[in-house]
């Protein structure tokens, strides 16, 4: 299949240690220059999808394709080289290092100095706070600013797909707004984004496509706007009514 998708996770089964499977035959496809958002209750396996895609958690079954090429057994470093950049949940800047060091660490697998300089200019334009605070300690920045440094770091290798795990976690509404604006800017600059977000409504408003996960499978997928407009989904997942959630919670399978 000559793929029109940048990243494809096909029939993935994955889990932690000897515990039960978290992902049970999940399929997600990310087209070029799009934002694909995974939503679903806690324990649905959203973060696990990203860990599988970045090579941190090898799947027990299924295939991972990047640009049609099978990369299922790649190590995290090989996934990075294949063009998958993972921005971890929570604050993952190196707090005791400067913004510049943080950003340059993103280019660690690159050797060409000219290329690195070019990427630095690119991310500085995309994220002005990176340029402004270049010599500051990353730990001295606000949560939203740190998130932008992480974004900049993830873009240093010119990734084909950025995997974003809960970028709005712990941010105030204003900073959350900025973060989602930056996600759109990343997409407009040509990078596809696979986004996991608790703030489902806000994420679906930003995304092009949405996938609703539950019990380790994709239940419904389609254009994000359609998912938002679906009244049944609104009740189940977007907080219009919370009582219905109970039946979907999976004991023992945490979101971490």
């Amino acid at each position, binding site marked *: 299949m000559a793929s029109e998708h940048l990243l494809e996770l096909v029939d993935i089964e994955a889990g932690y240690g000897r515990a039960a499977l978290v992902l049970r035959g999940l399929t997600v496809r990310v087209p070029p220059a799009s934002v694909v958002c995974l939503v679903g209750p806690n324990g649905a396996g959203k973060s696990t999808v990203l860990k599988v895609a970045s090579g941190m958690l090898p799947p027990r079954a299924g295939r991972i394709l990047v640009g049609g090429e099978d990369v299922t057994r790649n190590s*995290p*470093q090989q996934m990075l080289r294949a063009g998958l950049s993972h921005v*971890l949940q929570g604050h993952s800047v*190196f707090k*005791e*290092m400067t913004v510049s060091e943080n950003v340059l660490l993103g280019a660690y*697998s690159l050797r060409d100095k000219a290329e690195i300089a070019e990427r630095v200019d690119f991310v500085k334009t995309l994220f002005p*706070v990176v340029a402004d*605070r*270049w010599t500051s300690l990353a730990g001295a920045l606000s949560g939203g600013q740190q998130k932008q440094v992480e974004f900049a770091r993830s873009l240093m290798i010119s990734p084909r797909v950025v995997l974003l795990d809960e970028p709005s976690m712990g941010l105030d509404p204003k900073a959350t707004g900025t973060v989602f604006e930056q996600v759109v800017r990343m997409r407009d600059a040509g990078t596809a984004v696979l986004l996991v977000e608790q703030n489902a409504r806000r994420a679906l408003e930003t995304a092009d496509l949405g996938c609703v996960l539950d019990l380790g499978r994709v239940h419904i997928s389609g254009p994000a706007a359609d998912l938002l407009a679906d009244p049944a989904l609104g009740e189940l997942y977007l907080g219009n009514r919370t009582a219905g959630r109970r039946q979907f919670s999976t004991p023992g399978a945490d979101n971490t």
Partner: protein
Amino acid sequence: MPSDSDLVTVPARARTSTTTRVAKVLGLLVLAGLVISFPSLAPDSFILSVGVVIASYAVLATSWNFVGGFTGYISLGHAAYSGLGGYGTALLITRADVNPWLAMVAAGVLVAAFAVPVGIASLRVRGASFVIVSIALVLILLLVFQSWGSFTGGSNGIRLPRPFGDDVLRPEQHERFFYLHAALLAVLLLCWWAIDRSRFGMGLKAIREDEDKAQSLGVPTFTYKLVVFVISAFFTALGGGMYALWFGFLDPIFQFSILVGSYMVLMSLLGGIRSLFGPLLGAVIVGYAMEFFKAQYGDTQAHLIAMGALLAIVVLFMPDGIIPALRGLVNRFRPQAASIREVSAAELAEQRRAAEDTGGSERGEKEEVRR
């Protein structure tokens, strides 16, 4: 974003960095002057020998800090490498009749080779487990060197011939070894400084902060840890070898002692493991304090109690060490430093607007100062 405030802040920043640079150069010159003039300032041969001991500790602590400072892996067992460096030097001289200085370097190389498998085995574990593994090696070596009397001299120790010959008097010997230790220390500091500024150093510091994250960014964490561990072992062995040549006698109970390794850690923590001169400063303070307590109270355990108290004080009040604490203190008195005071919401909004106008460059400068 050119604005009026940019015209003010940029020269201010330039001035700060020039002042800092001049201060750094001056500081280095003063330090070099002190080191060079110490032997002629020392009132007697005993003080001179204390200087050599302190210089030796500074070499060992700075060598330790290649692993401890860059990767955050706390090795309590670096006495293994200083002891092996000393014994390697002694055995090469006495058993193989090698030139003393060549023996010292050869012992360093041998210890570095020995550190490769040790590193491969021990660097797999982190935190407390790594500390335990590092201690285990020292205890094993102590037993081996005590029991293998026919080769190592056993508990009776081993005597080294004086490298400068018997006609060089003791004070003269102390002076030469003080300068030799200082030269070795200078090489170590230069290497540490070069790594600190390199791509390699950036990867190591990322390991120190979060090894998993560093790995996810493509830093070859295991290789890096191993390389810097071997470098550290090599320099520690050189330090041990040079000490052996100076002191002229080795006893396994002192060479392979947990205390020696603990001193390296204490000195580095005290001065600041993230600072180039941290271990040196720590060695001067701890080394002087130890000699003081030994001179005052004789061969009692008083100096150990004092060291324990010192370690507790450091951990409680200066977890980052003296140098970062001093830096923080200096910055507090700088005019640009931010101070906490109550402001009204209106003032805050006004400050925000002003900050946004300048594009954050002013804030950036404050952060620099705070470092």
